[in-house]
């Protein structure tokens, strides 16, 4: 199977000379379509920097990134329109849902499609399909303030899926939720990843959800280590820990 995303020897250096800080020091990571992986690490370990590099929000200093089989970064961006890349190829979820407060939920979900130039009705139809999949269609015409935390997060998942991106980057999406809701969000992401053949990278340090991930990348001092681990739901036993 062709990987959804491949990162090779990604580095990110902030500042220059004596004050330079290496946030990422040669990260290698591969994620396949349909899988949800966890990216865990302590505060300041480089999680957010890695996510921003993956999301084409900041420029890595060096390395190579392949997205859906296409090399998009090789010691520099190989594409001109980063904004379009982000809009069409990457979905985002955040610590809080960050729904646009003056739009209805269906409009929030339709927004990436509208920004991509899709007609309003078509975008609305697709948004309704996603909200139905996420079992929140009855709140389509509500505003964000009329939703619970879990409901709002589901709307933000629908928004991330709107353009059917090969990759979704989720930055601590369960941070504002209780344990029960956190588990249900991650289970939902697992289902959606399979259903839409999307690779989902979840940055978290939520101990409740960590055991659910089938693969985990741990980041420490700008280096990433893959933890191959027990798949609890299938009970196939422990695997040894290998660093990458």
């Amino acid at each position: 199977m062709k990987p959804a995303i491949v990162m090779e020897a990604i580095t990110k250096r902030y500042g220059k000379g004596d004050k330079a800080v290496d946030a990422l020091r040669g990260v290698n990571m591969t994620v396949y379509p349909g899988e949800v992986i966890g990216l865990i690490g302590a505060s300041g370990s480089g999680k957010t920097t890695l996510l921003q590099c993956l999301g084409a929000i900041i420029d890595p200093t060096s390395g190579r990134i392949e997205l859906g089989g296409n090399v998009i970064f090789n010691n520099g961006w190989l594409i001109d329109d980063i904004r379009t890349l982000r809009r069409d190829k990457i979905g985002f979820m955040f610590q809080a849902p960050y729904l646009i407060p003056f739009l209805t939920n269906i409009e929030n979900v339709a927004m990436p499609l509208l920004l991509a130039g899709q007609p309003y009705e078509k975008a609305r139809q697709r948004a309704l399909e996603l909200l139905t999949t996420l079992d929140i269609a009855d709140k389509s015409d509500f505003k964000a303030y009329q939703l619970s935390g879990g409901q709002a997060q589901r709307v933000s998942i629908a928004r991330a899926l709107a353009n059917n991106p090969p990759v979704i980057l989720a930055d601590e999406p369960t941070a504002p939720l209780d344990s029960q809701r956190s588990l249900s969000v991650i289970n939902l992401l697992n289902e959606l990843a399979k259903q839409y053949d999307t690779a989902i990278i979840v940055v978290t340090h939520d101990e409740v959800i960590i055991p659910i991930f089938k693969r985990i990348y741990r980041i420490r001092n700008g280096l990433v280590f893959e933890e191959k681990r027990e798949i609890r739901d299938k009970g196939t036993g422990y695997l040894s820990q290998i660093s990458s």
Partner: protein
Amino acid sequence: MINLAVRDIRYSWWRYSLTGMVLGLLIAATITLCGIYRGMIADALSLPSTSGADIWVVQKDTLGPYAEGSSLYADEYRGLAGFPGVADVANLINFSRQVQVGTSDVRVMITGYEDGKMGQPPTIIAGRPIIQSKYEAIADKKSGFSVGDKIKIRDYEYTVVGLTERMVSPSGDPALFVRLKDAQELQLKKDTTSVYNDRKRKNASDDTNQFAKYKTNAVLVKVAPGWDINQVADNIKQWKHFEAYTYADMEHLLLSKIINKAAKQIAFFLVILEIVSAAIVALLIYTMTMSKLKEIAVLKLIGASNSLITLMILQEAWGIGIIGYLIASVVSDLWVPIFPRYIAYSTDIRVFTFALTMGICTLASLISIRAAIKIEPAAAIGG
């Protein structure tokens, strides 16, 4: 594409409405001040522009008859009538006086004109023209008089037989038109105590006949067709030793010497009002933008361009401007008629104020646009 600004305005309608209302009142004040300024000019020129004269002949070295006192012998017009290029002449008297109506009194500018000549009220909006030789008057409607009112000036009682409009002195006193003879008497007549005192001082001099030497304030001159008005005025100045003002001179004199300072006051106040308006709009737009910076970062992250965000902020600022302008139009329509002086509330003032409002709103939104453009999509990710 969804119009983000319209959605945001609908979502925060109460905040918009409140700000729009405050801005509306400020714009209404702006419209009114512009109207007051225009009204002052219109008032200052109302009598000269409708008198039908081409030249005003007044006492030498005076700015009369509207700007300051001027005194000529009433028979000077005869000499002027024979002047080359002069088609018609008429005596004119005007002076301000407090007149009594019942128990209250009103300050008016008494204007004396000769029947059938220049200087009479241009329109009669109620009642009739003066037909009797004495003690009838036509009042500007701003005086508050009605047809049939009896008004007391000195010892005489006048009857208001007609009303005119937009006839006021440069200082805004409504005009009260009377026959020239009446005006001359009112101007010269002394009360009995004064006559007694004068007699004692002058030892019973010639003041017994106090109307012996009638005077006038100005002679209105109509220039014959084909003659150059400036040339005729220069000739009068040279040969008769009077001041002779053309309409252009009169306009310059009234605007630059009489209402100049008041106009400057209004202009300065207008500038202050516009600064306050800009500050209010800027504050609201900035507060609203700052309160949704994270959402703007998210919008950028999911593909919104800077131009889309800029347009949203600009449209919101313009929305406030339009709401404010509509409120201002209604408010100023309501309060303009109750002002004591004429307010020239014309279409060009409305257009100017609208353009000014939109300009202010655009300027006021610049600081917010800068903040929104500066926010990076990265701000949506991380704490």
